[in-house]
């Protein structure tokens, strides 16, 4: 995925949101998948991450939270969520990745004082493939968190429109 608004250094009140995104993701993966996310030593090759789940935020905070990973990671997430062997995972991968994104977004907004009531989430959308552009408002900041799930890269991005 190529972002038309590449993530930039967080400023002002957004500065500590990166850690909130990280904590939100860690809680979702630990509670729902019994898996501890770790931090990578280097940034992942985004061209290898062919699944993107997105949840829109609207209201007091407008933006888009996305989670990118490859098919192997998504299948493993689904396996762990459902408690079934990896070989039994089927078409529910998109549903599972969408729910994970939904929970991370919800968990994140609930951690920001006063935002929970005034910020609504869209149903998740899952995109397969890497050859697309994400257009957001000019100048809107983006926050990116790189993590590893069972050694596989997971990139969480929050594009902030207002």
């Amino acid at each position, binding site marked *: 995925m190529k972002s038309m608004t590449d993530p930039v250094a967080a400023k002002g009140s957004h500065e500590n949101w990166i850690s909130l995104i990280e904590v939100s993701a860690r809680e979702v993966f630990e509670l*729902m998948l019994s898996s501890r996310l770790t931090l990578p030593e280097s940034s992942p090759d985004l061209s290898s991450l062919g699944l993107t789940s997105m949840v829109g935020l609207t209201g007091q905070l407008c933006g888009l939270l996305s989670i990118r990973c490859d098919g192997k990671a998504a299948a493993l997430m689904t396996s762990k969520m459902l408690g079934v062997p990896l070989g039994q995972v089927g078409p529910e991968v998109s549903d*599972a990745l*969408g729910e994970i994104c*939904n929970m991370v977004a919800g968990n994140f907004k*609930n951690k920001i004082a006063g935002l929970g009531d005034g910020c609504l989430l869209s149903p998740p959308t899952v995109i397969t493939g890497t050859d697309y552009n994400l257009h957001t408002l000019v100048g809107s900041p983006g926050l990116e968190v790189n993590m590893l799930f069972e050694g596989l890269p997971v990139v969480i991005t929050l594009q902030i429109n207002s």
Partner: protein
Amino acid sequence: MDSVRALIVDDSSVMRKIVERCLRQAGIELKQVLEAGNGVEALSVLKDNPVDLILCDINMPIMDGLEFVKQLAGVPNAKGVPVVMITTEGSEAHVVQAISCGAKGYIRKPFTAEQVKEHVIPVLAGKT
């Protein structure tokens, strides 16, 4: 505790399966598990199927969980049936809104089987 007929309402089939698994892990014996992907589907299911417990998401297409809970008042098979909301909408205002609509419990996603147990067992026992 008698075995329970449960209706799980969530637009995610994965989440419905997780909720069912958590109910079983909580030691709740399930006689029947019915599923619906939104409030309209859930009302349709209830026309022909009496249940003992409803677990319901809030953010769903077509009819959301809060509207569904409001409409339960007119459904004979839902009379006195406890509803527990399971949702990412975790603000105090949402909790108050859900309870005022008739929900008996509220679980925030992400959740554990233990949290499901803590919220659902008292509701089934009529202690809330």
